[in-house]
């Protein structure tokens, strides 16, 4: 598709409001549960421009305030209307490093779109779909321009973790002329974008494309390198000569339920299941060597984005009956609305107000079933949501071959534990100064993304990476002027 075509005229406000929001072309539910290809097919240029025509070009755009990285939304949308797709994507990239990814996975319905003025009376402008559209046009055209990189500063920065936080931080530091190395524990780059989020929501080729661009900007990536094991942060500073270190290590530690029977074969964490399926491509076993088995009946515990991905992967792997077990109601489900709706279309059996009590297995150690307790909503808890309380005598059993536990992740302590003096909160998250993302206890060490906030979103991780890049740049300046020194690490690392 060309990156510049003839635009559409500007309409009056009244005319704009008459246009209905354009639906996203999708694979039908029947077709898509048979494959791992992307569900959403993307707007055509004509649809995108008509959708762009809907935007009222507000003077005080609420959408911009709703965007965690404050993309100039009306400006990029107007460029789409004018047929200037290249200009539109350049506008987005002023503040967002990864538009093709964010356009697909951001919860726009809670961010820019929920506050769009059209939301109140009509339906909001499809900001996310437009963002995705222009990013795809640019990638398909093969004209992605490398950002200008400043002259080499002579400073080296180590980034731990190649998820959205690390990628965004690396890109901005490279632009500022610093020499960047990303250390990634896994053999592939992208963090949750490759091991967690499935192909049918975010094609891996898009993630690879972004990583390739980063390499072309001169960023070095070392995969299969576990900081805390292969080398410590102290060694990065004092033996390998890095001047600053950024933690973008995410929240990769799985939680389990703590109910009897949890170690039966067939009870897996969402991380294990998704890693097998997405990172190791077990859906293509035996063409790929890693196996996965779901059986006929699968229960997924939890109802966030991670749970939705597990439910939908299980369905695609051929499970006949896929059940979602969640102790609150649909209203409290933390998943993106769009993903919840798609899962509902994909024949998932949602059991709201249901909590697992016990997992049953056979003598060979395989899962056979689960005991479920019905719940009802009681008084609001600390989070303001009504607390689910058990309904006495309401237990019942279901038969299952697989149980996938998707009830949350916490930070992986491998790197933080091997960094003496690094202040963590009680959840194991790194405590930073929000303006610079620098550790409060170890100057020169920065952090951003899920390792700071706990499991959150791609855009927040990316935004934090960018703030940290600024903070690191300032720190390097101070280092140069002799105002600060690298952390000495007085106690020996573990």
């Amino acid at each position: 598709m060309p990156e510049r075509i003839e635009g559409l005229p500007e309409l009056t406000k009244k005319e704009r409001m008459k246009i209905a929001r354009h639906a996203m072309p999708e694979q039908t539910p029947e077709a898509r549960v048979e494959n791992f290809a992307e569900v959403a097919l993307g707007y055509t240029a004509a649809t995108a421009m008509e959708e762009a025509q809907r935007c009222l070009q507000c003077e005080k755009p609420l959408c911009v305030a709703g965007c965690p990285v404050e993309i100039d939304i009306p400006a990029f949308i107007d460029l789409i209307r004018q047929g200037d797709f290249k200009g539109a994507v350049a506008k987005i990239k002023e503040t967002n490093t990864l538009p093709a990814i964010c356009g697909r996975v951001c919860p726009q319905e809670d961010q820019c779109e929920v506050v769009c003025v059209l939301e109140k009376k009509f339906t909001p402008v499809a900001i996310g779909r437009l963002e995705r559209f222009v990013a795809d046009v640019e990638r398909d055209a093969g004209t992605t321009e490398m950002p200008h990189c400043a002259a080499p500063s002579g400073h080296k920065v180590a980034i731990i973790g190649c998820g959205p936080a690390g990628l965004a931080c690396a890109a901005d530091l490279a632009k500022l002329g610093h020499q960047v190395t990303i250390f990634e524990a896994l053999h592939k780059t992208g963090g949750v974008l490759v091991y967690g989020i499935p192909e049918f929501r975010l094609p891996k080729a898009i993630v690879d494309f972004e990583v390739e661009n980063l390499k072309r900007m001169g960023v070095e990536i070392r995969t299969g390198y576990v900081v805390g094991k292969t080398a410590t942060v102290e060694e990065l500073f004092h033996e390998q000569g890095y001047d600053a270190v950024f933690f973008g290590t995410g929240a990769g530690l799985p939680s389990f339920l703590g109910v009897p029977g949890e170690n039966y074969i067939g009870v897996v964490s969402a991380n294990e299941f998704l890693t097998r399926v997405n990172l190791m491509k077990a859906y293509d076993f035996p063409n790929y060597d890693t196996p996965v088995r779901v059986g006929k009946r699968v229960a997924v515990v939890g109802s966030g984005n991670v749970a939705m991905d597990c439910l939908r992967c299980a369905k695609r792997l051929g499970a006949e009956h896929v059940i979602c077990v969640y102790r609150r109601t649909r209203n409290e489900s933390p998943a993106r609305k769009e993903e919840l709706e798609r899962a509902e279309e994909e024949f998932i059996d949602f059991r709201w107000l249901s909590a697992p009590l016990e997992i049953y297995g056979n003598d060979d150690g395989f899962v056979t079933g689960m005991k479920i307790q019905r719940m009802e909503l009681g008084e609001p808890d600390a989070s303001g949501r009504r607390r689910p309380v058990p309904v006495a005598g309401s237990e019942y059993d279901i038969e299952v071959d697989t149980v996938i536990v998707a009830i949350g992740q916490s930070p992986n302590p491998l790197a933080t534990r091997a960094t003496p003096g690094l202040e963590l909160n009680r959840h194991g998250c790194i405590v930073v100064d929000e303006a610079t993302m620098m550790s409060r206890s170890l100057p020169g060490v920065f952090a951003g993304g899920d390792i700071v906030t706990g499991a959150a979103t791609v855009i927040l991780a990316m935004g934090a990476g960018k703030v940290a890049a600024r903070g690191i740049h300032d720190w390097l300046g101070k280092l140069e002027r002799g105002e600060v020194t690298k952390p000495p690490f007085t106690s020996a690392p573990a």
Partner: protein
Amino acid sequence: MHTIHRKELIAPKFWRFVVAAPEIARRHRPGQFVMVLLSDRGERIPLTIAHSDPQAGTITLVVQEVGKTTMSMGELEEGGQILSVVGPLGTPTHIENFGTVVCVGGGAGIAPMLPIAAGMKKAGNRVLSILGGRSEELVILRDEMTAASDEITFTTDDGSFGRKGFVTHALADLIAEKGKPDLVVAIGPAIMMKVVADLTRKHEIPTLCSLNSIMIDGTGMCGCCRVTVGGQTRFVCVDGPEFDAHKVDFDVLLKRLRMFLPEEQEARERYMADHACRALEGVAHA
């Protein structure tokens, strides 16, 4: 990419690889392992580091051909490359001068035992080793283990070498003759470690074992490797691989090891069928 410096057959289906991995060699401590991935379509498997040479920048891995991945490793050539070797992972063995340490190694478990026995000896312990296998050629690394031990006993199931019987028989006799050692370290098939644990529990001898569960990432991210130790769920890749053998629920471990038996069988058969075809083609072309 990691270059294979040396590859040799040390027993039927047992290969010793010396692989370039300078940073891993530098930090390796006894008891640690690496995750190995051969190719883009491969699976990640854990292999214990049998030896490391920080000067040469190499680590030694001993691999028994049991499944598709280990069988493909048997086909790799010296000078060839391994896509990914990650580590050193796991918590190192706690090595100090305990007094007398008995090292019980069975089959492929002898390889991970080697650095531990050597480390224990270096720390001043009297190291008494008992190595066993099904038959003579499966009792691997005999010279290396002899050098790392003060005394050594060999057993084979069929009596083809050393004394006939299991390592546990030899261990029971050793305890009867020499009294209780201060520590027993047992590494081998899960069933062997279970029997050793049962024996030493009776004698109240502290016992460590090293568990070989199925792993994916090896860094605590998936929970696939979890086992029950002292009634609690623990991850072998980060909390272990060594645990107090008296607290390990070996029944859970034994069952979990059978998790993917049908798939492993399928992969192995396809691999062998593939190779039979290629061998036949080779004949046809000759």
